[in-house]
């Protein structure tokens, strides 16, 4: 169906002086691969291994949108993709992207479902029946005629799949479709992929999270530094041990096999006390917590479904919301402004968190007594030394995240909150992030991680706080019993 013959690609980049250049380090090389009709193929490997680039060569974004130097051929049913107009490719290949927030063109779901067909010039009556078909096959009835902005991440990804489905492509290309989804949304996504496969569609997924694909994928392609290292059939891939996977930098295939690190028993000295905390938006009560204590030097995982109040709790802790009740640190009631001054929240999307023109400047921003030594130490610890003078926005996503963390360390913040720090990360980077969180924990009073990533919890956290409908549903240490509870929550 799709054949890669000695395909290589390098991205064109703009240098700091505004000139075009090709970087050998980015892109892919010497790809030979034959994708069969009706198969479900998973592309895996660490960040920057080239799996996203490979998927872009299938949907034609390379070389028609991302420019660069292309060698070799990609053939789809004997047609050379690089010579075919991308609009033509769109009739045969449908694409679903990583970020549900930025891939929608319309503001209501029905228009979004019709969008692909409209672009291809499908007749109006025909679009109607195709939308009906997509709604039925992918079970989207309750999502029709809604505003895109009120959907959850999982619902958005289902609409994205439905919109692509309505154009009747033979091939579906998905680029990290699960990276901003919670556990129930991932289950929905898995259902969609199963449906597509049953209909005989070819599905190609570039992905970090592998556990939800273990039952649907036919083959796994493992990539490293832009090259295909090995191709596994499903049975062989599932036989790989956890150690074999982690040595390749891959995430687990089976959440059940995960083990937690032994719990470090801190002195149980409560440092942050939340009392009678409640918060409402309009008439709806979003958060209602009678009492909750966070202990000194503790790393807490905050889990719960979408809408359980995780982000709101984090915002209250940081003093960003006007809540009722009180938050005490070391016995002293804190005003909102004091809370904000003592806290920092590392967002999933760091693009809005960086303000200055170089990494070093970023660390020194609003620091009253600049301590050059501390800057050097932090940059070294966070592996940012080489990028000291570069613009933060020229760095990769993970590096940007580390710059933001470094700025919080520099400012000596007491409360550090991470919002989904590892959802789009491979095992290597997740591991590094986990170590980083553990290291920085020594310098803060308390660390809280909002996460849907059980691997991160097992590696990093001392305790889990489980929110449900705005209340603390459960709170337990990550010990043998806790591990079972976490697995129960994430697997069912």
């Amino acid at each position, binding site marked *: 169906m799709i054949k890669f013959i000695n395909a290589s690609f390098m991205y064109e980049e703009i240098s700091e002086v505004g000139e075009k250049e090709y970087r050998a380090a980015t892109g892919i090389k010497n790809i030979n691969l034959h994708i069969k009709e009706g198969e479900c193929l998973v592309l895996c490997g660490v960040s920057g291994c080239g799996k996203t680039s490979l998927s872009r060569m299938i*949907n034609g974004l390379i070389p028609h949108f991302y420019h660069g130097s292309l060698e070799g051929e990609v053939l789809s049913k004997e047609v050379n993709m690089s010579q075919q107009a991308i609009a033509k490719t769109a009739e045969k290949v449908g694409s679903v992207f990583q970020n549900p927030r930025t891939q929608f063109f319309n503001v209501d779901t029905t228009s979004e479902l019709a969008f692909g067909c409209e672009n291809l010039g499908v007749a109006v009556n025909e679009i109607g029946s195709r939308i009906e078909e997509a709604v039925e096959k992918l079970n989207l009835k309750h999502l029709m005629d809604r505003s895109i902005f009120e959907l959850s991440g999982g619902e958005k990804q289902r609409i994205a799949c439905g919109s692509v489905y309505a154009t009747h492509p033979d091939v579906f290309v998905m680029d990290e479709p699960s990276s901003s989804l919670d556990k129930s949304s991932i289950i929905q996504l898995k259902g969609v992929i199963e449906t597509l496969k049953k209909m005989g569609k070819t599905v190609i997924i570039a992905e970090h999270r592998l556990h939800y694909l273990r039952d649907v994928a036919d083959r796994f392609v493992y990539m490293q530094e832009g090259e295909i290292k090995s191709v596994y059939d499903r049975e062989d891939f599932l036989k790989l041990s956890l150690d074999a996977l982690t040595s390749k930098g891959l995430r687990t295939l089976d959440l059940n096999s995960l083990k937690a690190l032994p719990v470090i028993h801190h002195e149980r000295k409560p440092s942050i006390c939340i009392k009678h905390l409640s918060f409402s938006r309009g008439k709806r009560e979003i958060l209602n917590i009678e009492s909750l204590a966070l202990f000194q030097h503790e790393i807490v995982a905050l889990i719960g479904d979408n809408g359980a109040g995780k982000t709101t709790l984090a915002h209250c802790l940081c003093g960003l919301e006007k809540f009722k009740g009180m938050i005490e640190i070391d016995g002293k009631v804190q005003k909102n402004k004091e809370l904000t001054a003592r806290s920092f929240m590392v967002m999933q999307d760091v693009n809005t968190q960086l303000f200055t023109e170089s990494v070093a400047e970023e660390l020194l921003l609003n620091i009253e007594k600049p301590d050059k030594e501390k800057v050097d130490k932090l940059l070294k610890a966070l592996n940012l030394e080489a990028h000291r003078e570069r613009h933060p926005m020229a760095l990769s996503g993970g590096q940007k995240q580390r710059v933001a963390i470094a700025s919080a360390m520099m400012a000596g913040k007491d409360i550090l909150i991470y919002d989904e720090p590892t959802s789009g990360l491979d095992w290597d980077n997740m591991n590094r992030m986990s170590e980083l969180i553990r290291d920085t924990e020594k310098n803060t009073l308390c660390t809280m991680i909002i996460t849907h990533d059980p691997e991160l919890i097992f590696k990093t956290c001392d305790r889990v706080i489980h929110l449900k409908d705005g209340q603390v549903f459960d709170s337990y240490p990550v010990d043998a019993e806790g591990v079972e509870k976490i697995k129960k929550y994430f697997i069912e």
Partner: protein
Amino acid sequence: MENFNFGYTNSPYLWMDPRSKALLFLAANFALWGGTNYFASNLFFVFIVLLLINGKQTRMAMTAFVIYFAFLAIDVVLISKLSGTVSILLLTIFRVTRLYMPVICAAILLIRTTTVSEFVAAFKRMGLSDKIIIPFSVMFRFFPTLGEEWRNIRNAMRFRGIRFDWQSIMLSPIKTLEYVIVPLLMSTVKISGDLSAASISRGLGGPKERTCFKQIRFGILDYGVVILSSIFMIFTILDGM
């Protein structure tokens, strides 16, 4: 930002075509010109208010109605009793506000009660180019996203101790502007790239003529609006002569 949460859902009692709303808007502008015939323009204003209620903009309709007639009453009662520059200026404010009410109401009817896909369908029918229609849809789609980005930036500024208030704007305007505009534009550029990639890979910009799934058709109400608006415009022109 809340003002920009329109154009996404629409459930009037009786559906109205965006084209007849546009004509109504044009006619309301005529009222500004003519405007000397109280009776006709008052009647026309009431008509617009009724259409607003039909579009479930009841609160806006009521507010406009009260302001309009209260100001009219002030005008009628006080005009003969007042003299002197100050009171006349005061009167002017009442009068100009009142005269603008039909235009504002018609604009709200047009913008608030029309979904983006209805606009696109209407533009398509009017033969507008995709070069206008595509940016138009994107602009409306981006307003709420911009609100989200702005909230994120504000939060990040608070954490980093970057002030954004009158004092900081007065004391260090350039620095403050830089801290606001740089992250805002950085994320704008990023989102623009993602959205372009997603749209192109879904066939936008292909050689085939785009179709439009949303179909719009004139209903009973639309014929009524067209007839009344036309009569009003002709009447205003004749009255002016």
